[in-house]
């Protein structure tokens, strides 16, 4: 199992991450490292803390304890200005696209270039169109986000995330809510980005088919812990019940006894 023990030069390193929401522990001592140029898929059932983990990795939410290194910098030990500077080297594609509603698609995609470079507007527009071509969105530059379908929003969000050719790309739920054809297109796009730009890509998903197709390595999380981590074959061979349930698309029974079940229904604690 490849964990954070062997992480020299890894663009993303997580050590002993613990996060809590109120009294609920979401992540319990999680450690892993993502290697340069790999597609690392984080899987888990709904509510397993995948998106929260992503928010920790990109510095949007501070964990209760633990250490996160992004491109060699400990993101919660640096100043806000340094974190903003570090983010110039990463791209994040959000589940909903998160395009700025008041701007056209082109203005959204061009925003990082307009903010961080001195390129002339014509060059920026050409770069924007290149990315739109790559995402099969050519001709959509003048649309407003409200005029796009769910799949188009995701692809436009991805175009914006890769417009600066980042070293590390984070992609939250690329296939969620998409039709099978669009989902396959997005998978191919992720593979193309890795192959053509040598990007390190971290994908958060609960779509098994997509994960098995694109991943170099998969990490399955559940009940706050890493249930399995490794390449596709290693994941398939895992004997962890949660991983097997995920692979077999089987419901997990939480094995409660009749008394606890009754207490849960009536809202009384079993100690009563």
């Amino acid at each position, binding site marked *: 199992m490849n964990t954070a023990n062997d992480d020299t030069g890894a663009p993303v390193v997580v050590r002993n991450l613990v996060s809590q929401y109120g009294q609920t522990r979401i992540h319990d001592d999680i450690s892993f490292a993502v290697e340069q140029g790999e597609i690392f898929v984080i899987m888990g059932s709904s509510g397993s803390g995948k998106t929260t983990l992503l*928010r920790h990795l*990109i510095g*949007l939410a501070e964990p209760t304890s633990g250490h996160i290194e992004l491109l060699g910098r400990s993101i919660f030990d640096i100043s*806000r*200005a340094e974190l*903003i*500077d*570090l*983010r*110039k080297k*990463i*791209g*994040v594609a*959000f*589940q*909903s696209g*998160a*395009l*700025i*509603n*008041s701007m056209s698609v082109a203005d959204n995609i061009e*925003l*990082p270039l307009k*903010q*961080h470079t001195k390129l002339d507007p014509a060059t920026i527009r050409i770069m924007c169109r290149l990315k739109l071509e790559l995402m099969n969105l050519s001709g959509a530059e003048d649309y407003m986000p409200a005029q796009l379908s769910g799949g188009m929003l995701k692809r436009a*969000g991805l175009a*914006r*995330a890769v417009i600066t050719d980042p070293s590390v790309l984070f992609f939250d739920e690329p296939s969620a809510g998409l039709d099978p054809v669009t989902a396959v297109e997005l998978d191919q796009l992720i593979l193309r980005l890795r192959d053509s730009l040598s990007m390190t890509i971290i994908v958060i998903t609960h779509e098994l088919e997509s994960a098995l197709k694109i991943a170099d390595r998969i990490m399955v999380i559940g009940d706050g812990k890493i249930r399995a981590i490794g390449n596709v074959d290693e994941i398939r061979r895992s004997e962890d019940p949660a991983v097997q349930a995920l692979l077999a698309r089987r419901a997990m029974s939480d094995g409660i006894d009749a008394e606890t079940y009754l207490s849960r229904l009536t809202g009384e604690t079993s100690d009563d």
Partner: protein
Amino acid sequence: MPTLTASARDSVFERLQGLGRMGIFFWRMIMAGVTQRLQIGVLIRQIHFIGARSMLVIGVAGAFVGMVVALQFYDTLVRFGSVSLLGSAVGLSLIRELAPVLTALIVIGRAGSAMCAELGIMRSDNQIDAIECMAIDAYAYLVTPRFIATVIAVPLLTALFNIIGIGGGWFVGVVIFDLSEGAYFVSMADSVLWRDLAMNLTKATVFGAIIAWVCTGKAFLMHLGREPAFGAEGVSRTTTDAVVIASISILFADYLISALML
């Protein structure tokens, strides 16, 4: 002293935390203005939205407030045979109190609530997170230009309110009640001092800062705290809170500034 219950303690603690977050928000907003490049495009759009597009409603409100103030004062002054003081009464009440307070309340209703709802939706839909992830300081990009725009626009709108309000008072006093035009303006010029105009400008500037701080801060921080707000209901609740808090804060600040400057 009565013992505080645990929930009351929690509630007080939560409110103090909220105040602390708003304090840090204010500090970051100011620091972003000092250290980051000013987003001129966003600033101009916001001045247009908050200032230029509020001119009509401020003008109409100013006219009617000036007219009703003149009407009320005329009715009172005529009993004491002092109608020649109408210009002075209208000028002082508008410039010292009514123009800055009413302008601020109108701006809260028209632009502050819109600003809060817009940023609230952006927070709820991860758009603010996306801006941060594009290595853009969300304070410098979204908050500081709105703050500067409001601080510029509110005093200008207040000046417009002053002028149109005085014009409304002139219409009632001179045109309807046939007072001498000279007496109306001379009594006003004699009694309105520079310090009254300074009070007018101070109030308008402080009120502009309060509107921008509360309306952007409430939206920006709506996902934090014991009861984070999300979605349509969250945006609606946050906007209502922002309007109420900004309005009350302005009335409180109005008293404070009046007490200090009179």
